[in-house]
């Protein structure tokens, strides 16, 4: 199959970028979207051009490193998948596929389709952990956690940190990302002692990084590869309120 890629090229963070069109043939439906870009890059090398920079690592939907805006959707046309899980069978022969980097003030462009998501790491840094040193743990079954609570914690903990929520959000809000981590830890007994401080610190960092407000459009939960429910944000808001009052 043959498609036209219209891809954002930007050499440096401050450089002025622009779309560039590439006709690519010899693609098959079994190829993943990223393999199609690999294929294009090999052609570019042979033509002596610089390759398109895009990110990926595990290519099985769990590391969270890949992620581009494809034809107007974060991670492409299907809900709840990563870019690496998108296959060319989702496109038709002759399609034009517009590929853009995540757009958000807090995710500056590094090069072409690569953005800097270290703002997420800095939110984590502000308290997405339980402050217990290695070697200080009690016997695992001494902490009983009902299945329902464990399952809910796991639902929230499934976030892969890809940034699709921010990318698709009209306000570039990082609420879903932050909420998922807060709810994972704060719903578990292990996370309780630091619960209030964790909410306050992590959300404060979210604010400092320049993310927008959450308007509950719900776009994030549709594009989230891990299917994190937007109810997590409401839960974070409740925790935030409680922490502001009691913390």
């Amino acid at each position, binding site marked *: 199959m043959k498609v036209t890629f219209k891809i954002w090229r930007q050499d440096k963070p401050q450089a002025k970028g622009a779309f560039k069109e590439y006709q690519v043939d010899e693609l098959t439906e079994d190829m993943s979207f990223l393999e199609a870009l690999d294929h294009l890059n090999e052609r570019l090398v042979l033509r002596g051009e610089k390759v398109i920079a895009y990110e990926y690592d595990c290519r099985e939907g769990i*590391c969270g490193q890949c992620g581009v805006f494809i034809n107007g959707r974060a991670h492409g046309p299907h809900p709840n998948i990563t870019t690496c899980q998108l296959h060319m069978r989702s496109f038709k022969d002759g399609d034009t596929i517009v590929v853009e980097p995540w757009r958000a003030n807090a995710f500056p462009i590094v090069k072409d389709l690569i953005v*800097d998501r270290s703002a997420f790491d800095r939110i984590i840094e502000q308290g997405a952990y339980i402050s*217990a040193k*290695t070697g200080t*743990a009690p016997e695992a079954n001494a902490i009983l956690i009902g299945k329902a609570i464990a399952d809910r914690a796991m639902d929230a903990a499934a976030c892969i940190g890809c940034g699709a929520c921010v990318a698709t959000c009209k306000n570039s809000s990082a609420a879903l990302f932050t909420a998922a981590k807060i709810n994972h830890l704060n719903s578990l007994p292990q996370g309780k002692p630091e619960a209030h401080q964790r909410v306050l610190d992590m959300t404060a960092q979210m604010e400092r990084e320049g993310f927008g407000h959450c308007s509950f459009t719900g776009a994030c939960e549709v594009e989230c590869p891990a299917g994190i429910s937007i109810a997590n944000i409401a839960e974070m808001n409740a925790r935030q309120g409680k922490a502001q009052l009691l913390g």
Partner: protein
Amino acid sequence: MTLNAKIPEGRLEDKWRNYQTQSRLINPANKKKLHVIVVGSGLSGAGAAATLAELGYDVQCFCYQDSARRAHSVAAQGGINAAKNYQHDGDSVWRMFYDTLKGGDFRSREANTYRLAELSAPLIDHFTQQGVPFAREYGGVLVNRSFGGVQVQRTFYARGQTGQQLLLAAYSQLYKMVRMKKVSLFTRHEMLDLVLVDGKAKGIIARDLVSGALKRFAADAVVLATGGYSRVFRLSTLAIGCNGSAIWKAHKRGAFFAAPSFTQIHPTALPQSSEAQSKLTLMSESLRNDGRIWVPKQTDDPRAANDIPEEERDYYLERRYPSFGNLAPRDIASRAAKERIDAGFGVGRLKNAVYLDFKHAIERFGINTIQDRYGNLFDMYKKITGIDAYREPMQISPAAHFSMGGLWVDYELMTTIPGLYAVGECNFSDHGANRLGANSLLQASVDGYFILPNTINNYLAAALNKEQVSTDHPAFKQVEVEVKQHIDRILAIQGTKTVDHFHRELGKVMWQECAMSRNRAGLERAIAQIKQIRADFWSDVKVTGHSDELNTELEKALRLADFIELGILMCTDALQREESCGAHFREEFQTPDGEAVRVDDLYAYVSAWEYDQGDFKLHKEVLDFEFVQPSVRSYK
């Protein structure tokens, strides 16, 4: 040079305690004066960096990804083993030790393997406290499931994302120490060489992958936690960025490389569907708990899976290995699949797969239970293949997965270079010739959290109050110049073929001759072919762009250059080991019914290779089995 594994005295049960009792300690006030470099931020790297920082050391941690959370530990699905005996099914540290040793076909050290089992239980305590949402019973206690190669239930899991949850716990703990300014984290930095001063590891040269700048980092000890090298096969279950460069550079600087040919082929990956494929997706081995593996009894059966009646299905694992059945160890399951596929019974479009069927499990437990256990795996399968595995069987195929081999380390996890440590998958320590399922997360974590932080002080105590090497030392300058020349050389070739072209060529040779089954003629041929690929690469590769910018093509080229050399060593190692053991199956050494023939009299050793100006010199660490008698591994 004789290899001294520094195994402590005493009974197996006492060795680790004895070691700790005798190991040197460092005053907390002094630890902050000591600098440690940790390369890699996966489960072992992040665990080591965070724990070393908690102990007071000044730590610098590196990863090539944009965040420490991407490390490939994240992709481990199935679980982590621990000898907790929560299921009351006769498990114990000893049994777990024995299972691991036997699973590895008696090609690992007793003391290391025992320590792995011994530290497994506290590790579960540790991760539980860190907030890992392990699966629970309704009453709130932890659940276990069984895994390939064992008959007890000792695997802890967090849905199908155990690796992710453990890694995120480690990553968070790492960031806790970043916040406390005890760890400096360098993301998007790739180690390109090791710097030795007076024969001791004193630092690294890393490339800032964004600016392209080469940077020097000095320390009192260097810890490599860079994971596995199965991308040497190109198609593997590993992340695309996984590479062997750091350990290969360390090897070229003097660290011995142990058992490089011991690489595990995982039985339950998705089959390759095209030449352009970049990666084989793993379906967790835990699926084998409830799924039954079969192929049609007739070759090239054109019927759809559901149209093939029960009596015309060959459940070959259950047939050949009645007591373990579908839970036979990975190497056995992979080889059995390859045997069926090669004999013409393969299924799928390219006839390169076997069926993994949940029909009976769904009938028995109901669809809800299966959904609860494997829901996300079934979802993932559907995303990739478009097939609903609740209705028809999955198609699976073997794929290169784990490297048991790696840098040779002693009981302290130190390589043959003083001050250079290797933890996690990049070392050769506990798994022997084959790794049991759910032991990988375990080893990475135990190495990083529990072992290294207790052994590194034994070395660093001597470094205290000695003059510390700075990056101005001539050794740093010299290595940096060498790295720069290496990069410039690649960029200057401007040939006619892409990096991926050469990687595909290498992968084909490695998969053909050095994967599930190997033979002398094939390995010799492979070595010649890889040498040719190396020559072609260095004369005809084309890399566009420059070295002083973000250049993903250059990154790939640098990694491939090392893979090519590593491939030669892997074949060399497979060639010298004239026996079949674990994942290493030499066709010349098998019983008439196709089972492996191990030759303990001649090969009960760990091969440890010394780099010698392009050649490799074999050293042997003889394995003394003091406490168990190596038995013939039978899963029948």
